[in-house]
């Protein structure tokens, strides 16, 4: 039973009071951590974007304005909350939570640190390590869509509805590429568990950075993952869901006060969760060089260094998201659909095929220098054929006309 529930050694020796306590403590810590991360990320984002626009950014609340997000959050609590007459009141109230809960749950499977012992119990520094790890992530990102969809539908107003229809279409389009890009990693690692994937990218020496971490082994999938993840989180340049010029605020047009804030919280949580997942899947999770001059089993190398590496990598990716936000203009709707359907899904598919060949070649001991080029050749051939079959844009238009 416990093997189905979790791979965490904490749960493998029966469940007693201490175990429950540890799990509760972990839950609280992870929840608080995610909230603090969101606070920090919003401040960080505003500061970096301000830098990129020669401004100063928030600088009044706390040192360097670091408490600005807190101040904004408190303000939201005291704002009036209005519900439109035409709204479906129950669903309208429920929707924000439907979008924030999955965002949090998805973060629970991210390995933040290594294997430590608390109160004599061995455990992973992550809230949960279900053997279906990555599937759980896909599930959660799918359920998160309900929050957006129901918010738009329950508002009983046209712009939210249009925004939520866009959101659904966008998420459905990119979910496929997203899932496929993850498959390449799964094939390499041979497990669905996030801990297993992180362990498969363990740090052995400096060349691990290139030879063991999946960002380089599955570079195509990594790029596709990043693009699809940005699209999944409605992050610019894919933020058509809330394109102000066209849709006012998109699905959250009718939301005010703390409910509105919860949508934003969920949005930023998603960005952080996706970055954390990218760290886990492609950048080795918490693995990284230990401090050689300190004992291998000491507190620093067991507890701190993995956590340090995890957050360093997370910071790099988060900076990347902010940089993208500051640099790229929003895509047009047809560009969004073209990119998703005509390029990403195709490429992700081919990447999976090539990966499969590479993995099988590795396991069977085939000649690498024959198998890999053959796989690439096949992939390019398939891509070419697909391109040939695809109607040109103007043809498609004339057909419609």
């Amino acid at each position, binding site marked *: 039973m416990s093997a189905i529930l979790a791979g965490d050694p904490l749960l493998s020796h029966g469940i007693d009071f201490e175990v429950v306590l540890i799990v509760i403590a972990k839950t609280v810590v992870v929840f608080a951590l995610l909230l603090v991360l969101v606070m920090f990320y919003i401040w960080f984002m505003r500061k970096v974007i301000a830098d990129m626009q020669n401004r100063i950014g928030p600088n009044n609340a706390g040192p360097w304005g670091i408490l600005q997000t807190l101040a904004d959050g408190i303000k939201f609590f005291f704002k009036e909350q209005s519900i439109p007459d035409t709204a479906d009141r129950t669903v309208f109230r429920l929707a924000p939570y439907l979008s924030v809960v999955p965002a949090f749950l998805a973060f629970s499977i991210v390995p933040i640190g290594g294997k430590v012992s608390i109160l004599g119990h061995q455990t992973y520094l992550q809230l949960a390590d279900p053997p279906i790890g990555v599937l759980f992530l896909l599930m959660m990102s799918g359920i998160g869509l309900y929050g957006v969809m129901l918010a738009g539908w329950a508002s009983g107003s046209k712009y939210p509805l249009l925004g939520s229809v866009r959101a659904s279409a966008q998420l459905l389009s990119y979910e496929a590429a997203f899932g496929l890009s993850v498959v390449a990693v799964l094939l390499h690692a041979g497990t669905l568990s996030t801990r297993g994937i992180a362990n498969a990218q363990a740090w052995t020496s400096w060349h691990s950075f290139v030879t063991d971490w999946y960002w380089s082994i599955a570079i195509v999938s990594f790029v596709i993952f990043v693009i699809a993840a940005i699209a999944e989180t409605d992050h610019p340049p894919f933020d058509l869901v809330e394109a102000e010029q066209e849709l006012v605020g998109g699905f959250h047009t009718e939301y005010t006060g703390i409910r509105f804030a919860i949508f934003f919280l969920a949005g930023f949580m998603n960005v952080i969760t996706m970055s954390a997942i990218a760290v886990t899947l492609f950048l080795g999770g918490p693995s990284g060089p230990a401090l050689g001059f300190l004992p291998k089993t000491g507190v620093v190398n067991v507890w701190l260094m993995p956590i340090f590496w995890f957050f360093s990598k997370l910071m790099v990716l988060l900076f990347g998201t902010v940089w993208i936000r500051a*640099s790229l203009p929003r895509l047009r709707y047809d560009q969004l659909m073209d990119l998703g359907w005509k390029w990403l899904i195709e490429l992700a598919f081919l990447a999976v095929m090539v990966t499969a060949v590479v993995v099988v070649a590795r396991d069977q001991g085939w000649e690498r220098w024959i198998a890999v080029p053959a796989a690439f050749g096949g992939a390019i051939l398939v891509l070419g054929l697909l391109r040939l079959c695809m109607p040109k844009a103007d043809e498609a238009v004339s057909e419609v006309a």
Partner: protein
Amino acid sequence: MGMAKGFGVTWRQMFRPRLTTEYPDAKRPKPERFHGRHVLNRYEDGMEKCIGCELCAGVCPAKCIYVRGADNPPDAPVSPGERYGFVYEINYLRCIHCDLCVEACPTEAITETKLFEFSFTNREDAIYTKAELLVDDDGRARRQPWELWMGDEDDHTSAWMRATSPSGDAEFEGRIAWSNELGFGERPAEPAQGPKASPDA
């Protein structure tokens, strides 16, 4: 790769100097002829300039000035003329700061300062009465509790009036055509006035 170029631009901007002025701790200099809130001026001997003629009220396009004149008490005159402004009110919820009242005034009694940071929390406060508009015994604008200004921002109380007086014309260069003010004496001309003055100076 146009996209990479875009990323380069944002990256480079991170290391350029900031352009932000940290308002309200620091303020940028205001244009010379800035239209802020009004003051009612006084002569150097302390007499009020307003003669209660209601020309300003008549010209105001927003109809926000209310003036009632009264005869000067012979033993304690308020203004040098026959009458004085007995009631003077400006409703700042209506004023559009067009400065037409300043141009209409025959005695340069009403002028506009550069003070604009007044955010009242009730409508009563929006109506400035004579007690609030009239300059104090040093010739300075009276600070209301809800007004935010500091330093010498209340120095420049009659720039627009002087700028539009006949001396603004090259023909009258060097000839002062405005009366002295309490606390400031004879105000110098604005730098932009004179032969070199052009519309965009």
